């Protein structure tokens, strides 16, 4: 096991800069998720840690060693690919034991370690099958087995669950999490799914366009997003953003919403961020028209129109509300986020939670 330190990592393909100076610190045994929209460079960064991509600038350390010029096989990291990349002509056992065979380990040791990994992943009865005879979830587990059998210092996952159906994805999410708790191996996990990142990671690195936007624990990012991008990316359904201005400790918007912000400097323009789950239905609130009602059984989602401003409301109660009706919305004043509309940065130091 080892920590991974990434200092000012850069990657360019010709004139195109994919990573523009990224710093990430992964502590020993930590589970870190790299999230961001497509093309933000998260997969490139992972492949640079793996050694599949060269490093154009900066430094990547695994343990005490700078690995910039060290080939993948000497980095002692294992990677699980998005499409599993199982060798189709090898049985499950051979797939899992291939790295050990290449390392010249004796056959009985390979068998023992493959059996042990298969035990952990519940693959013991499938060892003689070929990949094409397995289901998607089983293939996924073989891909993980191939990684853990080597007992590497770092696990790298590249969107490993994106090919699975929704139900299986939730199940495998828990399995990967449990595996990490059991083995305690340092893990870097790339995903574009913020729910995956929130549920699995000890620490999340939010990336956009080749730079790190924010690093923090899942709840930290949820409660204190550093900017509008992170605020909008983390949390589902996404945070509501309302434009307005701050005057004498109140945020006032054109749609009629007015909330106390506490001691905040007056600004001519500001953006209020409020999560759908932090809106309440209260007769004292601002009127809004219901556009769409989505009932999931456990929750109710309302898409609202507040004088032209689109808002999303999420509540735990079942509401007998139909589209076209009017509701009154009151934001939870202790969970407001204020942003500068120009830079997108968080305004002041005022945390989102009281």
């Amino acid at each position, binding site marked *: 096991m080892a920590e991974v330190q990434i200092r000012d990592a850069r990657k360019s393909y010709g004139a195109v800069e994919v990573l523009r100076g990224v710093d990430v610190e992964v502590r020993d045994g930590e589970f870190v998720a790299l999230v961001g929209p497509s093309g933000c460079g998260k997969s490139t960064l992972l492949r640079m840690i*793996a*050694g*599949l991509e060269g490093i154009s600038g900066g430094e990547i350390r695994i343990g005490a060693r700078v690995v910039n010029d060290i080939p*993948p*096989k000497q980095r002692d*990291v*294992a*990677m699980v*690919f*998005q*499409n*599993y*990349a*199982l*060798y*189709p*002509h090898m049985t499950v056992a051979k797939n899992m034991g*291939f*790295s050990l065979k*290449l*390392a010249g380990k004796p056959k009985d040791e390979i068998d023992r370690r493959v059996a042990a990994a298969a035990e952990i992943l519940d693959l013991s009865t499938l060892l003689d099958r*070929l*990949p*094409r*005879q*397995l289901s998607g979830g089983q*293939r996924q587990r073989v891909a993980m087995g*191939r990684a853990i059998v*080597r007992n590497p210092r770092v696990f790298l996952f590249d969107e490993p669950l994106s*090919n699975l159906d929704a139900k299986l994805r939730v199940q495998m999410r828990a399995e990967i999490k449990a595996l990490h708790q059991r083995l305690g191996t340092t893990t870097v996990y790339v995903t574009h799914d913020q729910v995956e990142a929130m549920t699995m990671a000890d620490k999340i690195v939010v990336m956009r366009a080749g730079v790190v936007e924010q690093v923090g624990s899942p709840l930290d990012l949820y409660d204190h997003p550093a900017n509008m991008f992170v605020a909008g990316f983390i949390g589902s359904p996404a945070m509501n953003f309302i434009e307005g201005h701050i005057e004498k400790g109140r945020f006032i918007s054109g749609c009629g919403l007015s909330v106390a912000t506490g001691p905040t400097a007056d600004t001519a323009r500001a953006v209020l961020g409020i999560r759908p789950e932090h809106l309440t239905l209260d007769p004292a609130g601002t009127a809004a028209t219901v556009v769409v009602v989505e009932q999931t059984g456990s929750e109710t989602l309302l898409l609202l129109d507040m004088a032209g401003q689109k808002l999303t409301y999420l509540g735990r109660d079942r509401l007998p509300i139909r589209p076209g009706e009017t509701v009154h919305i009151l934001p939870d004043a202790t969970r407001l986020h204020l942003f500068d509309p120009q830079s997108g940065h968080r305004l002041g130091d005022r945390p989102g939670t009281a």
Partner: protein
Amino acid sequence: MSRRTHSALPVHITLAIGAALVLVPIIWTVAAGFRTQISLLMGDVLFTPIGSNFAEVLWSKTSDFLLNYRNSIIVGIASTLLCVVVATLAAFSLNRMRWPAWTVHLFLAWTMIFHMIPPVALASAWFTMARAVGLENTFTGLILAHATLNLPMAIWLMAVFVRDVPKELEEAAIMDGADTPHILWHVILPLITPGLAATSILTFIFSWNEFAVALTLTMKQTATVPVAIAKFAQDFEIQYTQMAASAALAMVPAILVLLVAQRYIVKGLTQGAVK
């Protein structure tokens, strides 16, 4: 009567015509091998089959056909081996060694142009070259020539097969600690076996049938089957029936190779690799 039977009839007729176009010349040739020269030249429809043409071709003291047959097999197998080994390595290199794009395109374009040159145009030049280095009238010379002639096609075919192996498999092997030779041997080769078989068959058959270069580079002891068949057409007499008999015999290896190797040409071997 169902719709299905209706629409099947034209298809069957088309297929029958196609099959006839392919088979009739072959059947005619084989049949000619069983006729007397007179019966053939008279154009008789019905004839009494005789075996003397085959016997003459195979066992007559004046015939070298068995030697030619052996020569063709030696040249065919050796040039095929040489050709597919080089082609596979070249295809792997072109696809995976991160050459600049123009290098790959230039190389593939050149191989294609080379493939379009008629072998006859090369034959005399190669004869001069072979004689200069003492390779005329040797198997080595003809093997090198046939491998060279077939390389463009083999490289194009193998490049497609290698390209179709998912890149992630190679990357997974790299992460598993494999070097390039390991990747080629343990990952790429097992997956392109069907393609390798198909390419080998085609290369072997082309070498087996090649005439112009073989005629130029060989003499009596090293002549291959097509050269031998042509020898039946002499200045004052064309021995049609013996020619037909040897042509019929010449088809045997191609048919055998196809029958044996057909089972290797199966699709879906890479299924289950990714996704």
